[in-house]
């Protein structure tokens, strides 16, 4: 299983758990009888074990497993907490932290088994008054990685602090020899940057740049890449080949500000051991390896084998601390987990800002300010506010992927239960939507997919008869279309039999026979969305409990989306879900009806027409107009809104043509009031009966405009 996508979550949670453990164990040290604390530790260890197991980190799982065991016994009262045990637990935590650090950097937990800690934990359980585990190699290694400078007194010396000990491989050595033969002088330079320096990487860069102006830097320690990434303390050494004198080189270095000291000398290439000759430090990472060797040698309790064989220590070092990997950049992008509530607050503030901006615009207009400067500033404010809104929106956006990834598995399982051959194709998983939408849309999509598998795709025999490929195709395409996201779910199966739907609807009393007679095929298919409707003759466990498509529909509509279906009998059907990209701020057309202003979401509008009263025809007692060849019903918005139009009967009418899927309708309004970015505010629980009004927005002058949900009118 590819679990890399969960890595970020795993690391975040692991860090949290380690923090919890640290705090709790500390508390336990103060108060060994604290049961809450013991339970907390048990839970954290248990969760970590589970997480590590899922991610396939065996060593970490093993270690946390033993930790959990210990606390299980503590909980049962078979063993008591004592101080040596606390020490062991902290060592254990450090080791876990080591694993997590490794995983952060390389995705790999490393090879360290921490057998000594495991043993110590076992000893605790078996009741031996165990001394704290011998200092495990991993802990000092981690320390060493954090502060390589600590290894200064180590026998071999530190290449970063003193160029005499600089490490290089054969290539670099060859290169230096070539340069020397070319008549250049070779100097070793060690530079120490002041510890108060904030931008040490920048200072180091200036040193490099200065020296490169006069010569060639053959080798540096740490590598220039690490220096660029600030992966060094305050010291670095390099070998430079130049025609300048040593004093001149020193001067160049000291000219860079915040350099504390610079030591320079003739570099004797013959004194240098290449990494291959040098037994102790590993070639890729000489410095930390040396650091590793140092505490190992100075810690008498370290298992002898580890201290004695330096190559093994080096190998271990490469395994445990990833600073030693040449390109040791963390593989996981840095993230901050933020409570969605905080984002909501931020979003609200941005909304207020946009309202204030709109207010400023209308205030400037009404005050008759024509100053170019004011307009310029307003435009600037507008662009800042819009960008800010987009940024906050983006923070809330997550790819659909998280919701979609369970579907292939589901279809595979359905293959078996249904005895059909099915194949699911998904595209556009990376399409991003507001988090709340992504969380909510999973169930409706699952329902549609199951529907396709169960009702859509025919039995294998029928497929063969119709000359279709044996494997039924189910697809899910997601893509962005303007300000909305479209998700299409469909199949190449049977399609929907409009007549069967109609019969069923009559049978169920959803429509009367007379009504059904006049219904178009499309209207019949729409009946599927009626509550309590299910066409499957046999209720199966996959779908067809009669609580299907109407739930899909209401769910999608609650997310301010729409759902429609396209179908052709015998060829398949496609369900098209259209969702708004954002739920909070939209572009809207402002209109006036009966003296009040209303907003219509721009996404719902197809066009605006000027219609003469004489163009209105009556079809089945409904007013319609002929709009470029298609008969479009018109709705008097003043009637729908229970107000009175300010227009006289004989005047030409402004008609806003709104769309809902393939359907069109014309809304008769009094006046247009321009386009505006509006912030959607909910009406609250007292006023939820009116479906026509989906919300309200506050205009620049503080007054309220209602937002018309045209989907309820079409």
């Amino acid at each position: 299983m590819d679990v890399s996508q969960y890595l970020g979550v795993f690391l975040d949670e692991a860090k949290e758990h380690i923090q919890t453990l640290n705090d709790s164990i500390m508390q336990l040290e103060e108060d060994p009888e604290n049961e809450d604390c013991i339970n907390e530790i048990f839970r954290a260890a248990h969760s970590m074990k589970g997480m590590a197991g899922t991610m396939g980190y065996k060593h970490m799982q093993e270690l946390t497993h033993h930790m959990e065991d210990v606390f299980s016994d503590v909980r049962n009262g078979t063993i008591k907490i004592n101080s040596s045990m606390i020490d062991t637990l902290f060592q254990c935590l450090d080791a876990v932290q080591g694993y997590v650090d490794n995983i952060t950097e390389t995705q790999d937990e490393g090879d360290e088994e921490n057998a000594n800690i495991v043993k110590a934990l076992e000893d605790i359980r078996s009741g031996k008054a165990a001394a704290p585990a011998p200092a495990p190699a991993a802990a000092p290694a981690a320390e060493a990685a954090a502060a390589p400078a600590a290894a200064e007194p180590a026998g071999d010396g530190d290449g970063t602090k003193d160029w005499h000990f600089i490490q290089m491989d054969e290539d670099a050595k060859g290169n230096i020899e070539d340069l020397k033969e070319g008549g250049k002088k070779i100097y070793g330079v060690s530079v120490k940057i002041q510890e108060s320096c904030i931008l040490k990487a920048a200072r180091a860069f200036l040193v490099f740049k200065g020296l490169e102006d006069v010569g060639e830097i053959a080798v540096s320690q740490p590598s220039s890449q690490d220096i660029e990434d600030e992966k060094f303390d305050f010291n670095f050494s390099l070998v430079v080949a130049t025609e300048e004198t040593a004093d001149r080189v020193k001067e160049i270095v000291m000219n860079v500000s915040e350099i504390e000291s610079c030591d320079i000398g003739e570099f004797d290439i013959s004194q240098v051991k290449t990494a291959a000759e040098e037994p102790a430090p590993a070639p890729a990472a000489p410095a930390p390896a040396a650091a590793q060797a140092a505490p190992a040698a100075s810690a008498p309790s370290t298992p002898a084998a580890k201290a004695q064989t330096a190559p093994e220590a080096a190998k271990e070092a490469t395994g445990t601390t990833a600073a030693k990997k040449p390109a040791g950049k963390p593989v996981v992008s840095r993230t901050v987990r933020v409570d969605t509530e905080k984002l909501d607050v931020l979003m609200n503030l941005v909304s207020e800002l946009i309202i204030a901006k709109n207010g400023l615009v209308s205030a400037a207009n009404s005050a008759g300010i024509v100053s170019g400067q004011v307009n310029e500033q307003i435009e600037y404010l507008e662009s800042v506010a819009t960008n800010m809104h987009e940024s906050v929106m983006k923070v809330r956006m997550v790819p659909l992927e998280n919701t979609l990834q369970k579907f292939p598995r589901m279809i595979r399982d359905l293959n078996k239960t249904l005895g059909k051959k099915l194949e699911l194709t998904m595209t556009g998983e990376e399409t991003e939507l507001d988090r709340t939408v992504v969380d909510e849309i999973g169930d409706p999509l699952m329902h549609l997919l199951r529907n396709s598998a169960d009702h859509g795709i025919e039995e294998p025999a029928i497929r063969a008869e119709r000359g279709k490929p044996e494997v039924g195709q189910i697809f899910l395409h997601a893509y962005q279309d303007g300000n909305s996201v479209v998700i299409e779910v469909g199949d190449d199966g049977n399609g929907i039999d409009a007549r069967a739907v109609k019969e069923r609807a009559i049978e169920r009393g959803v429509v009367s026979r007379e009504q059904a007679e006049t219904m178009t095929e499309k209207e019949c298919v729409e009946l599927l969305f009626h509550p309590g409707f299910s066409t499957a003759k046999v209720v199966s466990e996959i779908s067809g409990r009669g609580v299907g498509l109407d739930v899909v529909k209401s769910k999608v509509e609650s997310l301010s989306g729409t759902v429609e279906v396209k179908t052709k009998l015998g060829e398949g059907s496609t369900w098209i879900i259209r969702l708004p990209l954002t739920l909070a701020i939209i572009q809207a057309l402002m209109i006036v009806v009966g003296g009040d202003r209303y907003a219509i979401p721009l996404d719902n509008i197809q066009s605006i027409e000027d219609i003469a009263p004489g163009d209105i025809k009556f079809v089945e007692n409904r007013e319609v107009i002929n709009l470029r060849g298609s008969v479009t019903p018109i709705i008097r918005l003043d009637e729908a809104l229970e107000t009175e139009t300010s227009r006289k009967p004989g005047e030409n009418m402004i008609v806003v043509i709104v769309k809902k899927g393939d359907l069109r309708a014309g809304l008769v309004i009094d006046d247009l009031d321009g386009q505006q970015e509006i912030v959607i505010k909910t009406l609250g629980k007292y006023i939820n009966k009116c479906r026509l009004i989906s919300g309200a927005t506050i205009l620049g002058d503080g007054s309220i405009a209602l937002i018309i949900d045209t989907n309820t009118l079409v």
Partner: protein
Amino acid sequence: MNELRDTADVGELIQFIVIRIGDEQYGIDIKDIDNIVRYQKVTKIPQLAHYLKGIINIRGVIVPVMSLRLKMGISEDEITDKSRIIILKGEGNELVGIIVDEVNQVLTIGSNNIEKMRRDDRAKRYDGSFISGVGHSEKGLVSILDLAAVENDSLDAE
């Protein structure tokens, strides 16, 4: 008021805003009130219960406004200079505004001086009364508005 406090244990002191609706005076516990604003234009919303007048904007929050007169079955509000909208903190801190004819004064009444209304049938349904109790102060009696009844919409059916 001080005399009262000296002579008897009045219990916890509660401050009430006294408002007038029609000929009646009602007290509203000050802690249930978010804000009091002058009457302003209420944006109408179609298809609402008759006593819900619409919505107003209170510092960027959409707040529904109801007419207590209409809810109580008195005549339509007459908006004057003294008309105010009291913004109440309802259930779950949801705000709701009520139109009152006048805001009179602030009264402090000890909790022991409040006579609770008996409400045996409370569990079943509201009986149309909007009073949860009567407070005694040296300035006379004041009916305490029953906010649960104000915010309850089970009367809508009638």
